[in-house]
């Protein structure tokens, strides 16, 4: 099963490597990992997407909780939540393709950020599935580069991860 683990972390040197080191040392897989400081500059918010049985997810949560730099965490997939990923993608766009690609981007509610004679850079946010869908829709065109942030997430309603 896919789990999205949201972590509130001390914004300190080495904190990230404690988390990633724990995953590799214990053989847990990391599908994606994003991290950035929050409005409280002493804290970072990290989102890790991992795959594993509920038992493994339970262990991941418990082991992460033991790290001194981890202030709070939650497995977002246990409840209702919103997840968003950002993708920036550079595609070859020339001739008749140009219109085609622009139409596709509109359908997906993406934006074209940069235009040259032969390329577009497209920005899209959404769930990871939506991003996957755009990539496959663009299959016939020449995809030059894909940059994805990995999902971030937040629980719906009043519940919050707070120090």
């Amino acid at each position: 099963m896919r789990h999205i683990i949201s972590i509130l972390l001390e914004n300190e040197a080495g904190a990230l490597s404690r988390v990633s080191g724990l995953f590799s040392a214990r053989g847990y897989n990391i599908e994606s990992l994003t991290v950035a400081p929050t409005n409280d500059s002493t804290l970072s918010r990290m989102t890790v997407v991992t795959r594993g049985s509920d038992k493994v997810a339970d262990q991941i949560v418990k082991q992460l909780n033991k790290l001194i730099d981890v202030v709070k965490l939650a497995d977002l997939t246990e409840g209702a939540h919103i997840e968003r990923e950002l993708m920036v993608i550079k595609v070859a766009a020339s001739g008749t393709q140009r219109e085609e690609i622009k139409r596709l981007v509109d359908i997906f509610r993406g934006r074209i950020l940069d235009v040259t004679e032969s390329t577009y850079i497209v920005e899209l946010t959404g769930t990871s599935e939506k991003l996957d869908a755009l990539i496959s829709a663009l299959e016939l065109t020449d995809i030059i580069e894909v940059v994805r942030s990995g999902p971030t997430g937040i629980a719906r309603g009043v519940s919050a991860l707070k120090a």
Partner: protein
Amino acid sequence: MQLTGADILIKSLHESGVEVVFGYPGGAALHLYDAMYRQDKVKHYLVRHEQGATHAADGYARSTGKPGVVLVTSGPGVTNAVTGIATAYMDSIPMVVISGQVMLPLIGGDAFQEVDAVGVTRPIVKHNFLIKNVDDVASTMKKAFHIATTGRPGPVVVDVPKDITAQVTEYIWPKDINIRSYPTTPDADVGQVNKAVDALLASRRPVIYSGGGVLLADAEEELIEMVRLLGFPCTNTLMGLGAYPYDDSLFIGMLGMHGTYESNMAMHDADVILSVGARFDDRITGETGTFAPNATIIHIDIDPAQISKSIHAHIPVVGDAKQVLQAMLATLRVAKAKPNEAAIKQWWKIIQGWRAKNSYAYDNSSEEVIKPQFVVQKLHEVTHGNAFITADVGQHQMFAAQFYGFNKTRRWINSGGLGTMGFGLPSAMGVKIAHPDADVACVTGEGSIVMCIQELSTCKQYDLPIKIINLNNRYLGMVRQWQEFFYDRRYSNSYMDSIPDFVKLAEAYGHVGMQITKPSDVEGALKEAFVMKDRLVFMDFITDQKENVYPMIAAGKAHNEMHLRPDFGSDSKSSAKSGTKEK
């Protein structure tokens, strides 16, 4: 008061109650060593290798409950300490390791003797710090001791750049520290405690299984009271020996790979298992799929991550073992229900049947060849079972665990989790320093002892009259045993040629050496050695080369698939002259 970082650091050791430090100097630690020189509150022991410092601090910690403290220099100093840090980590031993580091501006530039100490030790510490500001020295030290000694204990590394130790700042020892992400241990959940008590009272084939956590929590009295109140069988893990007295009739011996037949069979057939401060390690469970198939598992652990890690816990209780046991005892004392007397009686009858197999029995009939088990039994007699016993790793370790017989906690000091050869001698130094009037013996093998043999010098320098019991079988015996059983006797690299003359070696280091080759000389030699209160005696016992440790659960097998000694002791043929049970 304005002080240098080095002075503040050494002062903070004293503030934290530290009396002894084990260490080895070097460039990046010179300011620290200078500060050490200029004070007399903390005593520094100079070891001969940084691994020795960590094991000595570890032995000190295990035998006292106080944190062990280590001071090493950067680069090779801290990498040499890594094995000892990992050893302490695996067994949850409180330890603070201070490592010198190259100057802050040089970090990351491949400076002389630079190693990323925080990175190298990260997976084997409870936490580690790199101090980047002299104002943080005192508070970091306070945090380090707090983290090392509270909750589930463990080693903490504090890496201090040399320039930080030279800078001056106002010294303030913080009264309190606040680590927002490090919670205090909660009291046990009352509902879980009640469930656990109900399950115990309803059981028909219970086993109480306790591990090193009971020692760490000083919960042995509660454990004993619980076992006696219920009249249930109790087994200890290798790490937990001493928590329940070995000679009490409710004790069914050590559990696990080389534990007794009765304890492993009882675990397998149990309907309720109460686990206290133990973590269902693979040397205990054997194949997890076949582990205790019919048991309701009650798991008391201070670390939630241990619960249901390898074996599903039906009734988890998170908390400090002492507090949880006290809560359970309080509930038990007022409970209306009583244990099912008839069922428990019947259960004991079955257990006695297993016990009658006398699974530790061995053939001690030879007048020529010394059996290693016999040496350990005699060691018990000569020291009246009161010695602190440290062990290295191998067959000798298992013989010590099986045959010494421990009545008290913190007397059995061994590397259970990491299984570190080289642990025995330096850890014995730490024990002896903490308990100068007690008998301290290191049970070792000719393979393990040389892994930290240099510490004989340290013993000389500080007059540490420990007794070394070298069970010299001229083999890496435990490796040879596995090769005999599982590799068709292909003894690949388990025989060591050119073993030193240990008597001369001991003498070269300024100690007393003895070699004992005959069973009839064992007792006399031990008595002679232990009478020499102020000398370190290296006793080289030339033992049976091919003795094996029995019983044994092969890796990946179930508890009820235990190998008993084939020729001896496995059934009515059993006629052991000695075994722990009938001394």
